[in-house]
């Protein structure tokens, strides 16, 4: 049966990527200026590209501004020719050719601008993405385990796309828009003052109207994204819980909720869309208004001999050029703001505290065998006010098997977290083979351990890559040997491409087979110490036996720490550490603990108690 039926977490990851396109409401950054300053500082490497982009943007605008003026000259030559009956054709052709060449150069320069800005933004975001992935490997696990971190990460990936688009288009567009605006105004003013005032006046009027509409439509956009989020949330929840909706005849209730949100969304949807859709007609109207103003007043002035007809023709083009940047600036400001908010989160992420630098520590413990492990007055708490482990001292003899038991949520993984230095001790020391782990680099500590976790984490990639997992120079023979020992070799051979088969989310592997893969991975890593999260709850009984055998083979000759979920499997352990409510309750061998009659004995007996019947 499809196992993703319930897998809400995965589902949410998949859809969150698609949802970003709908959030049109502009977010306000906390500090617009400083976030853009940061972006600029990041862009230093790409300075030549940015500079080229901006210079090209300016140049292309300046070249465009020649156009209308040439058009004016041509028109005036034509009208003069009409009056005199002697058209200066050569001059007209010469002028036309000249301006076409200028337009051609202008187009090339504009493309150069867009090329450099595209390259710059793509490369910058590539760098940022890379830094985020590096960051992920340097933050302490204590931070990564907090729920807010996952949210931040998934938002940041979207934020980078937002920033990418803003840098690619908006920045150069804004520069060009401002220059076009100023340049047009200047050209109009020197060509004809009165006509210029008419056209500028009518355009500004339109701009003011547009600003208003943006302000009015904002709340609808916000509402829209809120309702859309709510509706999608409801859909996700109902689909993921479909089996329960069906089992309890909850369809009507679920539809009612859906219809309610859907109606709200409809209202917000059409209103926000209508209001933002008003921008275009208004701009068109403004543009037309300018056109009419130029035509009528220009004609009036021509008839009085105050200006030439060529000026009108030139102004028709100027008015078109002049109204465009207004829209661009309005849209660009929103986009820059959203991008600033996005980059704020990106930098917040990149500023996350990292693990301490360990370049001075012992980096290589090669050749260390399965030595002694000493917990020396260890104290630890996930939060400063609540100590989980208080002054714990204990010595694990070389090559012995330690089992950690306790009810769910008792903090069994805490000890593993400390051993692996995923978390740092508050006080005390852990010594491995006589060496203080805090004097070694984390990598050196990790090299001493191999790990099999309850979460049978495999990544999308080939079976071989999953098994060798980063270890350099592993031969095929070693891999096959480990797989034979883990009892998974035959299964892998039966896959369509054997060891080269690509594993994907929907690969048809049972939980047991995944577990065996991770055991084989641990065998290949071949470290003297072993951590086993003995997770067989999702494995059926037959595979479980297989897994158990493979685990037993893996523990041979290693010092092992086993997090046990079933007591029956660990009675032979050399030492059992019993955890309760995040605390270490007892330690000792199975017999000692039973004799002591404490919490362990209680757990052990409740397992097989026949008292109640069902």
């Amino acid at each position: 049966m499809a196992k993703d039926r319930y897998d809400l977490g995965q589902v949410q990851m998949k859809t969150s990527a698609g949802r970003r396109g709908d959030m049109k409401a502009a977010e306000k950054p906390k500090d617009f200026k400083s976030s853009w300053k940061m972006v600029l500082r990041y862009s230093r490497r790409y300075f030549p590209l940015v500079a080229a982009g901006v210079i090209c943007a300016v140049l292309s605008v300046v070249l465009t501004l020649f156009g209308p003026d040439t058009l004016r000259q041509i028109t005036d030559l034509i009208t003069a020719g009409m009056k005199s009956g002697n058209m200066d054709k050569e001059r007209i052709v010469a002028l036309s050719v000249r301006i076409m060449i200028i337009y051609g150069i202008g187009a090339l320069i504009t493309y150069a601008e867009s090329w450099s800005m595209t390259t710059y933004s793509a490369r910058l975001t590539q760098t940022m993405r890379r830094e985020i992935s590096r960051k992920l490997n340097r933050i302490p696990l204590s931070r990564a385990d907090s729920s807010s971190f996952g949210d931040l990460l998934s938002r940041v990936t979207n934020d980078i796309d937002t920033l990418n688009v803003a840098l690619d288009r908006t920045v150069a567009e804004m520069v060009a828009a401002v220059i076009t605006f100023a340049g047009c105004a200047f050209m109009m003013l020197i060509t004809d003052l009165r006509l210029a005032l008419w056209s500028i006046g009518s355009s500004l009027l339109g701009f003011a109207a547009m600003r208003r509409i943006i302000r009015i439509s904002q709340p609808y956009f916000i509402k829209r994204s809120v309702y859309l989020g709510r509706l999608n949330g409801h859909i996700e929840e109902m689909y993921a819980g479909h089996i329960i909706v069906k089992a309890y005849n909850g369809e009507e209730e679920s539809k009612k909720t859906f219809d309610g949100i859907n109606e709200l969304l409809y209202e917000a949807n059409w209103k926000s869309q209508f209001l933002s859709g008003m921008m275009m007609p208004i701009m068109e109207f403004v543009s037309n208004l300018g056109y009419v103003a130029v035509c009528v007043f220009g004609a009036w002035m021509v008839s009085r001999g105050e200006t030439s007809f060529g000026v009108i023709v030139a102004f028709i083009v100027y008015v078109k050029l002049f109204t465009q940047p207004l829209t661009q600036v309005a849209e660009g400001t929103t986009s820059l703001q959203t991008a600033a908010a996005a980059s704020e989160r990106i930098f917040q992420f990149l500023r996350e505290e990292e693990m301490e630098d360990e370049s001075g520590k012992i980096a290589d413990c090669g050749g260390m065998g399965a030595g002694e492990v000493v917990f020396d007055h260890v104290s630890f708490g996930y939060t400063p006010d609540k100590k989980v482990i208080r002054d714990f001292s204990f010595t694990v003899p070389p090559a012995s098997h330690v089992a950690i038991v306790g009810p769910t949520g008792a903090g069994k993984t805490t000890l593993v977290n400390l051993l692996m230095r995923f978390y740092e001790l508050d006080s005390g020391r852990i010594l491995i083979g006589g060496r203080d782990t805090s004097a070694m680099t984390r990598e050196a500590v990790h090299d001493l351990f191999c790990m099999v976790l309850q979460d049978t984490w495999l990544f999308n990639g080939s079976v071989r890559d999953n098994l060798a997992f980063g270890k350099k120079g592993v031969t095929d023979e070693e891999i096959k040997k480990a797989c034979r020992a883990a009892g998974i070799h035959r299964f892998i051979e039966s896959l369509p491409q054997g060891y080269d088969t690509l594993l994907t989310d929907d690969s048809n592997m049972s939980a047991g087979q995944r577990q065996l893969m991770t055991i084989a991975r641990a065998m290949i890593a071949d470290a003297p110490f072993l951590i086993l999260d003995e997770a067989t709850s999702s494995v059926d009984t037959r595979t479980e036996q297989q897994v158990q055998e493979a685990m037993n083979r893996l523990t041979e000759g290693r010092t092992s720490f086993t997090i046990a979920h079933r007591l029956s499997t660990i009675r032979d352990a050399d030492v059992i550490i019993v955890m309760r409510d995040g605390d270490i309750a007892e330690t000792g061998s199975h017999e000692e603990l039973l004799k002591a009659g404490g919490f362990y004995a209680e757990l052990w007996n409740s397992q097989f108690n026949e008292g109640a019947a069902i």
Partner: protein
Amino acid sequence: MIRLFKKMTRSQALYALGVVIFISLQVVFELTVPDYMSEITIKVNTPGSTVGDIFASGRMMLLFSLLAFAASVLSRYFSARLAASFSQHLRKLIFDKVETFSMEEIDRFSTASLITRSTNDCTQIQNIMSRAFNQLVRVPITAGYAFYKISTRYWQWLAFTAASISLLIALLIFLIIYAHPRFRRMQGYTDRLNEVTRENMTGMRVIRAYNAEDYEEEKFDRANLELTMNALQARRAMGLMQPVTRFINNELNVGIYCIGAFLIASAGAAEQLVIFSEMVVFSTYAARIVRAFMGLNMIFNMIPRASVAAERINAILDTEPKIADGPALMETKERGSLEFRNVSFTYPGAAAPALSDVSFTAEPGRTVAFIGATGSGKTTLVDLVMRFFDAGEGEVLVDGRNVKDYPLEELRDKIGYASQQAVLFTGTVRSNVSYSEEDIEEDVRRAVRIAQAEDFVNGMPEGIDSPVNRGGTNVSGGQKQRLSIARAIYQRPEFYIFDDSFSALDYKTDRALRSALKRETAGVTTLIVAQRIGTIRDADRIIVLDEGRVAGQGTHDELMRSCTVYREIARTQLSQEDL
């Protein structure tokens, strides 16, 4: 896609009609404005025309500008209504459809895909309705009307305009062939990158334990590079659009004037003024045509994506759930009896049957347990009772009637069901326990008490009114299971079905819960799927399943004697002296 649009309601069709009418009006009004410019041009250059004449034409220009504006606003109003209303309608159609699906259909599409179809794909369709539909109407009308307006005697102008537009079309074709597919591929590359990031996040412990950071970083860099290169190619190509269109627009303008100069020079004095005014207007129209063609770029970019979305939505709407209500029935005489008669079941597309020839009975008030390896058919078996799937051969009888004869609602009302993975909904403890039933506080408390959830629920800040987050993320796995069991108890059903619902409970709670159930809800027939022998060893009847077949049935002691599969399971779980 057209098939999807046929699902439009009458009012949406009217909105669409409104869009078409007002866009046409807008185009006509807008293109009338330059006509008056032509009038003005003639008046200005005709000696003897007064200022009043010019202003009269000016007033007409203003009037048509206003009319165009009004038509444009109205067309946008209708288009906003249309897009919002159609997407609302579509979302509802999809959601209501999915709510009728049985688990077979859900599994076929997969939950993740159904969610994408109901959310993203609907948004895609809404976008195409709001933007591309407008363009789709506007482009042919503008181009056609503008061409009609400029069809003059002077082929030189037309030829020049046509040549410029073919350049534009060449660019469009290049973008459609080269850039658009790359833009579409972008999502795939982004997904791949997000996947690597997600892997890094979920596998952080393993990655650090194996010092595989470099390996993961390399993998990330590869995905990052692929994405970047694809984006660069797509965006660089798209970057051609603005300079090329602007160039065409400009040179068209100059070219028309230049050609005009020759035409005027060769014409008679009387003709000159007419040609001149035609020239000024012609250039305005030509610019409109260029703009209209640029709108095509957007349409060609959106249509492939939208039609994929439309196909995916159609696939849902076309699916008829296999499992339907049976005919309404008279009250059954028996209460709480269940029988499987030679039941076989094969999942669609599967080679081997999941259940073959399963027969057993459960008497009212008794407990029947199912045990066996993963994939042995335990969950499938209880799913057949719930009619999440229908048995292929044989009969499943509840209270003496075939389950297929019940209306689904009636059948499921008889059963309190707790699924393999506990499902909690956003709301409160209370709303989850009393889910889809009338909310009676006393009963909620009773159900919570029997399900051994009282302690932790009382420990929550607001007791049974404490909020439950989406997906129940604020309660632990064991607590989730107990609440979902409480939901089953709240229904006061004839049957309980607990599909491995005790797995996250420790032995003590497991036992306490079972004895509370026995004590307080006596008479309810209980079906338990379990992995742990401890959970089921006291059942009245244990059915051992092995690869879809019944390998043995009886009590614990009987099975220990007679059933090798059962003994094997027991041996792995119980210590020697227990056996």
